[in-house]
């Protein structure tokens, strides 16, 4: 049912072309319809799909495809190239402050994977970058959010800064940054509560945390299974708090993950990491070309 890859999608059109000597503009149009299908089925946002298909069509109607003996392959290659480019070409590293501590904020919708990713990221920072991170429990709303982060801290043997749930997240973050300076933690990772992008009061809270000390990174944590709404979410968070990068979680599932493209297209912010599991070592750098293949089902 769902999730036919682009190659299968194009089969019908390719068969038709095979009998003919060359590819017509009409053939390209038909192929583009399949490309559109495949992308929407992969959860790429409709508006982003439109732009994308337009761009690819322009290239496809050009010289490359029309004369080619394997037009199907050619189209797939163009689509893949353009997708990879759109997704940000190169791997994007973490930005550190030259006046430590580096402050990293984790933001996003409810259940996206912020708390889990906070733990994973701290693990990467210690292991790969030799940092001394401090985890900050600034979610005072979700039941047992503080305990969740504390449990992860214990698993990792890393300190968690927590002041319970009776103090405002802004105050918790402020004291945490002070504490980090005193204790020589060079990175502060702030786990914030999940919130809807349309919740003005809670979005204001993020702005207030942001205003304490200009964060070096604000990571929007996004569930890779997200559908068409990904653009609204990414755009709203970006406009309100100014994200610097994206972490795409739960990519160990079988979703095509078209949200990645949507987010990248509307925010132009790099996807920096992908979550590949629930365990604390399941965070990997993001590779645009792999993601392109995945979205296309190849």
């Amino acid at each position, binding site marked *: *049912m*769902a*999730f036919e890859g682009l190659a299968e999608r194009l089969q019908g059109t390719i068969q038709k072309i095979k009998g003919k000597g060359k590819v017509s503009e009409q053939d390209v149009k038909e192929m583009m319809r399949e490309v559109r*299908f495949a992308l*929407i*089925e*992969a*959860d790429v*946002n*409709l508006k982003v799909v439109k732009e994308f298909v337009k761009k690819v069509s322009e290239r496809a109607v050009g010289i490359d495809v029309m004369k080619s003996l394997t037009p199907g392959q050619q189209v797939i290659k163009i689509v893949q190239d353009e997708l990879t480019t759109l997704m940000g070409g190169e791997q994007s590293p973490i930005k550190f402050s030259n006046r430590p501590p580096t402050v990293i904020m984790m933001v996003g*919708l*409810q*259940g*996206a*994977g912020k*708390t*889990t990713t906070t*733990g994973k990221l701290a693990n990467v920072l210690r292991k790969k970058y030799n940092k001394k991170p401090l985890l900050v429990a600034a979610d005072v*709303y*979700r*039941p*047992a*959010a503080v*305990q*969740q*982060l*504390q*449990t*992860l801290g214990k*698993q990792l043997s890393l300190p968690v800064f927590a002041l319970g749930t009776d103090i405002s997240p802004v105050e918790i973050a402020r004291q945490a940054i002070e504490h980090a300076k005193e204790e020589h933690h060079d990175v502060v990772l702030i786990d914030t509560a999940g919130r*809807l*992008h*349309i919740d003005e009061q809670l979005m204001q809270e993020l702005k207030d945390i942001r205003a304490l000390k200009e964060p070096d990174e604000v990571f929007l944590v996004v*569930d890779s*299974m*997200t*559908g*068409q*709404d990904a653009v*609204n*979410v990414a755009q709203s968070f970006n406009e309100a708090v100014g994200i610097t990068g994206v972490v795409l979680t*739960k990519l*160990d*599932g*079988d*979703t*095509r993950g*078209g*949200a990645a493209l949507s987010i990248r297209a509307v925010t132009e912010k790099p996807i920096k990491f992908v979550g590949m599991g*629930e365990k604390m070592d399941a965070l990997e750098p993001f590779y645009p070309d792999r993601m392109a293949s995945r979205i296309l089902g190849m």
Partner: protein
Amino acid sequence: ARYRKVDEDFFEELEELLLQADVGFETVMDLMDKLRYEVQRQNIKDTNGIQAIISEKLVEIYESGEENLTGLNMQQNGDLTVILFVGVNGVGKTTTIGKLAHRLKSEGKSVMLAAGDTFRAGAIDQLQVWGERVGVEVIAQSEGSDPAAVMYDAVRAAKNRGVDVLICDTAGRLQNKVNLMNELEKVHRVISREIPNAPHEVLLALDATTGQNALVQAQMFKEATNVTGIVLTKLDGTAKGGIVLAIRNKLHIPVKFVGLGEKMDDLQPFDAERYVYGLFADGLEKELKEIED
């Protein structure tokens, strides 16, 4: 009211609105065919009254000739009803359990919860906070223990204490993880062994923000645990979760509740007419306004 012509542009706009609500290609095409036919048959010229027809056709696709199934399968004569929650990570299982417990308790039922997520950090604490909030007992073991053993304990405890409803939490798991799906089957089996016909409801929590993957989720969880209903969570956001139409149409799993927030009473029974209307009505209205301006 504002009217406009029902032409190709109109159909295209409607198509786009529904795709943006995650309804999915197949279902949208199905609707467009039905709608075109209806528009011709009734010789409809403008959009006056067309919303009702769109709604009707969408509900028709959703229900696909089956009866409307929104209620819970509750046992009578004081027998224990067991409700099992399943779903992928972070969709809202635990929170929905809290809300449902509150709802059932308000209806005068005695409720008990089983902390079957022994894996995720803080999951047991989270359910316990909900238990306190709602004022119901939570049966739990320590983190890392066997979820099937927790269920066994909980069913025994619920029977002993004569409660009306036992609601069981499970750890979130992605449907492509074979081991974890097997574990879930085992949990299901343990419950059935203690009470024939139980669990009486297996509710799949689906996040309304999810795209087309939700269909695969429903399919795989149904294979593993015979899902009887869906709770569509996080509908208080801007996402619509339109894929539930295809899930009902193809897999015959009805939506039973919708989640509308993080508080105790943010759970409502599913209303198909109201839901499908919400998929497109605002969008159409906006388009009309734009054309007028």
